[in-house]
């Protein structure tokens, strides 16, 4: 049986070009980039090249790129590392703003900060999974030092207004300094801290403009394996001058921000993966994927009754199609599809091992019993129309069969 992969939000296959770029660095050019001999220097050159590629992609300087093990580490370093630095600088009562739909890699560090006395505000989202910029504006206080808003939500694909937020923060920061500069020298106190803007862009890289200058971003998290690169590697963009302290100690790597021998093969792979994300290629892929996604949505809505599309296609990546098949528990639909050779994911509690369904779906105002019915398709650049047609054909009998088993089914 040929297996079909519709779970690109979970991970992506390594692109052939990426793999080819990585291969020499396993057994041939295997030096430690910290070594000053020839072996080490050849490895450094490869790391430098990858750093330049990432910098070019983000429109920053290479020194502003810290390689990590992936977005989870990048998020931790950004949030906990920035607050650690600010507390060290003497900031008394830091206030952090984030959203209710972030990845746990952001939510859990924020919860940890709260336990340590830091104030955190969680912004709600509209039913389409997008925050209202006005809510953010209202939540900002004089003590706000960090705002962390994900670029794209991994579950439903909703795109957050990153550019608008960046602009808003920039303006507020300018006003903070202006007020301070113009205040009475005797009473104005210390120079105010600017608000730092962090975004977890893991799910955005494939589709959207991640220019940190245009979007006024101070900290940006990214991962290799979501962009047809290898697992176990990622990066954090840190704007020059951003207060940040290392969380992982024990060396002097990455300008003391992230100790640990560099993952050369992974880093080379990450560099090669972002080189595949030129504007032109992204545009072509976006168009192709959107066409497949829209065919899938149309086919499913036409062939299956009582389906809710939770992805607001006007405010989402072209890859996402997130459905609730009412009266069908998501995990059993997922297993049925898997047995038919189609890989998808679900926000149902039954798949997570916890008792609650996805926090993202609940934050969008979706009822628990409907959240349990969810099935997420995330398409990638290698998917074909033939695969979409197969899914449209395979799914209706699966849903019918599971609905027939449901004791709460509507009378026929």
């Amino acid at each position, binding site marked *: 049986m040929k297996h079909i992969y519709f779970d690109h939000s979970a991970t992506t296959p390594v692109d052939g070009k990426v793999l080819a770029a990585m291969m020499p660095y396993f057994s041939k050019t295997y030096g430690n980039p910290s070594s000053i001999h020839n072996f080490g220097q050849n490895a450094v050159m490869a790391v430098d090249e990858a750093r330049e590629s990432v910098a070019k992609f983000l429109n920053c300087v290479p020194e502003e790129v810290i390689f990590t093990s992936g977005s989870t580490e990048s998020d931790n370093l950004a949030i906990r590392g920035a607050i650690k630095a600010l507390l060290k600088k003497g900031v008394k009562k830091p206030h952090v703003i984030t959203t209710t739909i972030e990845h746990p890699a952001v939510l859990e560090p924020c919860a940890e900060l709260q336990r340590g006395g830091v104030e955190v505000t969680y912004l709600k989202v509209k039913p389409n999974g997008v925050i209202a910029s006005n809510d953010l504006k209202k939540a900002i206080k004089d003590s706000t030092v960090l705002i962390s808003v994900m670029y794209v939500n991994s579950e439903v694909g909703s795109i957050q207004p990153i550019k608008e937020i960046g602009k808003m923060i920039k303006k507020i920061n300018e006003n903070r300094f202006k007020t301070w500069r113009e205040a009475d020298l005797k009473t104005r106190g210390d120079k105010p801290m600017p608000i730092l803007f962090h975004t977890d862009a893991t799910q955005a890289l494939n589709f959207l403009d991640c220019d940190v200058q245009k979007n006024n971003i101070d900290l940006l998290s990214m991962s290799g394996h979501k962009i047809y690169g290898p697992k176990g590697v990622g990066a954090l963009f840190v704007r020059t001058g951003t207060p940040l302290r290392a969380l992982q100690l024990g060396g002097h790597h990455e300008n003391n921000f992230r100790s640990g021998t560099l993952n050369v093969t992974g880093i080379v792979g990450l560099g090669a993966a972002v080189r595949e994300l030129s504007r032109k290629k992204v545009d072509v892929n976006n168009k192709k994927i959107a066409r497949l996604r829209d065919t899938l949505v149309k086919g499913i809505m036409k062939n299956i009754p009582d389906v809710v599309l939770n992805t607001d296609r006007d405010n989402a990546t072209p890859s996402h199609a997130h459905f609730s098949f009412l009266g069908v*528990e998501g*995990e059993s639909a997922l297993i049925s599809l898997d047995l038919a050779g189609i890989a998808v994911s679900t926000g149902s509690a039954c798949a997570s091992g916890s008792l609650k369904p996805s926090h993202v779906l609940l934050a969008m105002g979706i009822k628990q019993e409907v959240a349990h019915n969810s099935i997420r398709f995330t398409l990638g650049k290698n998917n074909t129309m033939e695969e979409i047609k197969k899914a449209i054909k395979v799914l209706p009998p699966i849903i019918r069969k599971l609905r027939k088993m449901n004791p709460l089914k509507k009378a026929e």
Partner: protein
Amino acid sequence: MLYSKQVINHFKKPHNQGSIKNADAVGEAGNPICGDVMKMYLKLSKNKKGQDIIKEVKFETLGCAAAIAVSSILTDMIKGKTLDYALKIKKDDIVKDLGGLPPAKIHCSMLGLEALKTAVDNRNK
């Protein structure tokens, strides 16, 4: 693999799935907010010793693959058996017969027993 072969087989082709129109006992357990609902229908008769036996059993389940497999195997385990025997079945017996369940899914086996017990309780009312 997350699930054993037995679980997958029961999930793919559940045994005794459906409902019984003139059932002698019907019981439901779970709720849709938690994601699982199981309903069990029993048709009873007496054996030579005058004990209640489960002549026929059907189930309907909204839930994950484990919940469906538990329902299916439980109906196999109790069909043709006395009520006393059926009520003595423990969750571990179900888990064992299914070739194990992932730890997070053990509670699904409870749901089946609850539906059975509720059915019997309802009948006695």
